[in-house]
């Protein structure tokens, strides 16, 4: 087993533990954790069964295996970032609506009281 494999296995385990811990503490919803769970699981699979990835990496013309792994991780991160931006936009819309509704309710309430 190469050094890279050992580092990847350890890192994946730490990462998985961190995710599971925050799930247990309820600081991350299960729905939102799926994308993050995918990342260490993919890493772990690559570390334990490196042969198919090595073959694919060689086939695609990567000179070093680690470069191909970097690419996979960056790809997953880009997907997660994109998903986060979509979520933030949806939240912004919802917050805007809430602020507007609350402000109008406050005004109606104030009008009722002063009558």
């Amino acid at each position, binding site marked *: 087993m190469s050094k890279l494999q050992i580092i990847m296995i350890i890192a994946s385990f730490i990462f998985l533990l961190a995710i599971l811990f925050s799930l247990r503490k309820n600081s991350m919803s299960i729905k939102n954790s799926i994308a993050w769970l995918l990342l260490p699981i993919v890493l772990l699979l690559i570390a334990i069964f490196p042969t198919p990835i090595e073959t694919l990496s060689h086939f695609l013309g990567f000179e070093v295996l680690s470069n191909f792994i970097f690419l996979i991780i960056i790809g997953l991160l880009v997907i997660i970032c994109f998903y986060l931006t979509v979520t933030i936009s949806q939240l912004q819309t919802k917050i*805007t609506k809430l602020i*507007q509704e609350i*402000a*109008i309710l406050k*005004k109606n309430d104030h009008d009722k009281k002063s009558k």
Partner: protein
Amino acid sequence: MPKSKVLIIIPAYNEQESIKKTVTEVQKTGYDFVIINDGSTDNTKRILADNNYPFIDLPFNLGIGGAMQTGYKYAHQNNYDIAIQFDADGQHNKSYLKDIINPIENSKANLVVGSCFIDKTTKTRRSSAIRTFGIKSLSNIIRIFSGKRIYDPTSGFRAADKSTIALFANNYPLEYPEPISNFEILKFSNLKIKEVPVTMSKREQGKSSIHSWKNFYAAFNVFLSIIILSLRRKHE
């Protein structure tokens, strides 16, 4: 003809210097009005409360789009026939109010825009060369993508009828709301926009929500929004 129920919406963000003067002017017209305090950090809210002005207090700053939409929602819920956007900084003149209300009362338009560019008699502070150029290009872009012409797409002096109020209450752009909502109406709805000539005065106090160094960025942003919106299907 029964007189229509008119609401003047005055969005205010940090307008402590000018809000009282503007409201005093608006009060003289006799129309209903409401001020939207967009999370001001100065004394705007205190001035509004002390003078017993009718106002809606947003707990956080939403920006001009979110603030104006609050006004349209309020107008919609309270069944107003006409809602008018009126700036708190004193650049809109109350003597033009009847001009922008008239076309709606005579069913000539669903949205009336007080325009500085419709004819040559209404020269204003807006007529700096670069600004005029920017607004002209914006007007051209809107024409290319919607097939219809609006001469002053950035004017914040607008009157909306019932169907436009309903539309805005439901869907109003948060950033650069005037050019984008004008475009959306021209492109996606059957509502009619009419421009009437108005003169706007120099801002009396405060800074414009669009700072000069940001103008280029703003124009780019609006162009991009228009292109992206054009790719969308007609929305309900």
